[in-house]
């Protein structure tokens, strides 16, 4: 559909926003080295690139969050300087953040009203939240875009997809000319992704410009009118959708050589629908059970989910040499299951037999996997500081920890300034490399990986998938992969489960297709979604 849309535009549009020759260094790392971007009115523009290619940094420059070392930004041909997000707002540029910026304890409506001035203006307008005014405006925008949300729900009770819709609505309330979204599909289930992409097209059709940062090529190709590709901080390609294909984009993102290596990586069928039964059972010979859950309940007592669905129990055996895949829409208990399986939390009820000290890749890298203000050696030490070679009797051996860290940084090709670099200065993909390197170094029997490729681009995801496949081949370790990315689970897992409301349902081999599993996944959340349209905005009769 996007192809016909862009082709139907006859005259070349005037450039709305133009970024030229942007440079930005962070310490010794050059994030941007001459990046450029031009946006036209009414288009969906995709910004592509590997991790660390500078996508997020360029977006931050555009949103006024980062003043670059060098470069020029013009809006409708007029050069502007953005020093604060407010400057960007004044130019009509609105950013939907990758990590959400809502206040969890406030309602949707209160969140929307934050930072909005009331119609009365003056100090009185600034003194109280203009709730009625915002509700009115939100109703209009919601009606125009089909962004259905429950205005009086407390944000912390919303699903990730709903939160993202609130986030987008919040930006739309300010009537931006440009809506920029940083990796918006990373957290969504397949049906939600389609909903989002349709919304983006609709926004563009209504005359707004949409800039989407993404790394899944099929999504980009289905929605974008034009594409800009960054590699190593430079703009290497700027093209109409009609003139590119997936291979061309992958080449531009990775460089041709790297793309070929990626094609030869041990994971198949990326980004496309995968036929279900390429791997039917755990292979014989690797049947030793290393982790057993017996009638385990994961919902903490007293939590709303537990009350809604009492008695949800999980029984699961994990064997060496297999990947157990757990799919599901966020918020169905995968988080709790991951914590129990990794030994980070005791089950509410039931019995969990686990190997000592399971390795764990939590989904929230920056909060739970890494100490942002620690350097890389210290972050390696978090998991390694209890063990032999890094201990000298009762003391830590920092020299050994530094040596190991350097070795791991090289082996896992982490782009960093060295073991003294702080974790927070690394890009998401490099942070994940650090986490994986650390969790695999200690030699565990069980690895629990929770959305291990969330927020990662093609090459980094391929790396993670390759590592998981390699570990399985080794046969010495059992892996549980919990992911909201259905393709990931279907391609990698030997056995596939779906998590629905605290229960674990095994997917029969015959139904291991995107649509088959998708139906199971959404069956639970459909009921909850029905309530959405019915709830009234305040002020409705």
């Amino acid at each position, binding site marked *: 559909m996007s192809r016909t849309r862009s082709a139907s535009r006859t005259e070349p549009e005037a450039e709305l926003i133009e970024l030229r020759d942007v440079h930005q260094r962070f310490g010794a790392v050059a994030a941007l080295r001459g990046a450029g971007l031009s946006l036209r009115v009414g288009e969906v523009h995709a910004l592509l690139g590997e991790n660390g290619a500078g996508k997020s940094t360029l977006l931050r420059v555009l949103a006024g969050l980062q003043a670059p070392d*060098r470069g020029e930004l013009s809006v409708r041909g007029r050069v502007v300087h953005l020093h604060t997000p407010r400057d960007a707002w004044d130019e009509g540029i609105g950013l939907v953040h990758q990590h959400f910026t809502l206040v969890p304890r406030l309602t949707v409506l209160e969140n929307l009203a934050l930072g909005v001035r009331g119609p009365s203006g003056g100090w009185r307008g600034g003194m109280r939240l203009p709730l009625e005014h915002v509700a009115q405006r939100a109703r209009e925008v919601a009606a125009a875009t089909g962004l259905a949300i429950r205005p009086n729900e407390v944000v912390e009770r919303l699903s990730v997809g709903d939160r993202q819709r609130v986030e987008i609505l919040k930006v739309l309330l300010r009537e931006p000319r440009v809506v920029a979204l940083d990796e918006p599909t990373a957290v969504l289930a397949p049906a939600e992704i389609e909903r989002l992409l349709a919304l983006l097209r609709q926004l563009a059709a209504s005359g707004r410009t949409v800039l989407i940062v993404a790394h899944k090529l099929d999504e980009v190709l289905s929605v974008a009118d034009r594409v800009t590709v960054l590699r190593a901080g430079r703009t290497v390609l700027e093209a109409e959708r009609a003139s590119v294909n997936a291979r061309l984009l992958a080449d531009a993102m990775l460089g041709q050589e790297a793309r070929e290596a990626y094609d030869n990586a041990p994971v198949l069928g990326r980004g496309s629908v995968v036929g279900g039964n390429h791997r039917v059972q755990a292979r014989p010979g690797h049947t030793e059970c290393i982790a057993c859950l017996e009638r385990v309940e994961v919902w903490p007592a007293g939590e709303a989910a537990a009350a809604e669905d009492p008695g949800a129990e999980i029984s699961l055996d994990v064997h060496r040499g297999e990947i157990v895949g757990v799919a599901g829409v966020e918020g169905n208990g995968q988080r709790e299951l991951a914590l129990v399986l990794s030994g980070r939390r005791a089950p509410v009820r039931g019995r969990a037999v686990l190997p000592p000290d399971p390795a764990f890749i939590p989904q929230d890298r920056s909060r*739970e996997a890494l*100490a942002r*203000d*620690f350097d890389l050696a210290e972050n390696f030490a978090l998991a390694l500081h209890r063990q032999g070679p890094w201990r000298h009797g*009762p003391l*830590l051996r920092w020299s050994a920890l530094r040596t190991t860290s350097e070795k791991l940084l090289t082996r896992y090709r982490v782009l960093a300034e060295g073991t003294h670099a702080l974790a927070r200065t690394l890009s998401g993909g490099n942070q994940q490399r650090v986490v994986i390197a650390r969790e695999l170094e200690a030699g565990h029997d069980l690895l629990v990986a929770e959305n291990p490729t969330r927020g990662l681009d093609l090459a980094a995801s391929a790396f993670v998938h390759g590592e998981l496949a390699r570990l399985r081949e080794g046969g010495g370790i059992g892996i549980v992969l919990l992911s909201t990315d259905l393709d990931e689970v279907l391609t990698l897992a030997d056995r596939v489960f779906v998590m629905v409301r605290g229960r674990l349902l095994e997917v029969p081999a015959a139904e291991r297709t995107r649509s088959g599993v998708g139906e199971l996944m959404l069956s639970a959340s459909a009921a909850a979604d029905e309530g959405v349209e019915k709830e009234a905005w305040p002020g409705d009769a």
Partner: protein
Amino acid sequence: MKGWKRKRGQAMLERRLPVGVLRWVGATGLAAGALGLTLLAAGVVLALGGYSPLRAGTALVSGALGSPDAFLSVTLVRAVPLVLTGLAVSLAFRAGVWNIGAEGQLYAGALLGAAVGLVSPGLPAPLHLPVLLLAAGLGGALWAAVPALLKTKLGVGEVVTTLVLNFVALNLTSWAVRGPLQENRGIFPQSDQVAEAARLAPLWEGTRLHWGFPVAVAVAVLLWWVLKYTPVGFRLRAVGAAPNAARVAGRIRVKPLTLGTFLVSGMVAGLAGGVEVAGVTYALYEGLSPGHGYTAIAVALLARLNPLGVIISGTLFGGLEGGAGAMQRDVGIPAAWVRVIQAFVILSALAIERWVRARPHSVFVHPPSAPGGAP
């Protein structure tokens, strides 16, 4: 077209010097900057108050550093409780425990220490001093145990509880020196002097500097070493820097560690009280501490929570307080002005800290948290 901003100089510096060195330079520069800002502001305020900043400054410096005796008997003696309480605060803050109660813990330590120092019979003389200091540490730890348990068992915020307990400890001391511990003459609200055997000997004859100073330095080095080289010190820093990552990635049990850190912090603050009794006053008074436990927060912050830095910043604040006496005597400036100057030091240290935090990518200005630098 000129860029929005340039940072070339810094990038060049980073290429030429090792990271560890840069962090130390950064930390020192930060402290020097705070001090410079402070002196500037204090000078302006003194001038506005009608005093000559120059004369005041001269009196302050000569009172603190003017002679060997001024330095040893005034500055360093005052530095001892500041270093110890500063260490208590640093340790707690490093673990994310906001212990504002060093003052109360100091008094609790002084109270229990003095009580032990007064009852001499029954103890062999060489053991009396160690037992006094041990009792003082125990007193501080007991005082910290209340907010520590409230925090770890019930989730009560420690800022309020530690602060409130300061006043309770102060009043408890007032009651003790009017009741059970009052001197035998029963005239002044103070205790009798502790036994000779329970006192800290002078370090050099003829000065008032006592063995408490090397004790404080030893505690600082010990804490620095623990934070840097021991697993428990590393876990403590991890809990302070990133509690979630410590729990999930580090598999660290946060509550026991928090509890332990809190108690040790209280113990070190209590030790400060015991050292004051055994080394300076030899008796328990109401006004034993002129707010050392509060100044300790400034000492710790200025040292950027580094135990070795606390020795320096504690000595600096000791000099400020010691010089204040001279300033009052020679120029007639009320000693309260020193409180104003201390407030300036805290404010400028905090302001510079914020400024640094806003530049996360610069190695140059980053806190020395790396094991290669300082813990």
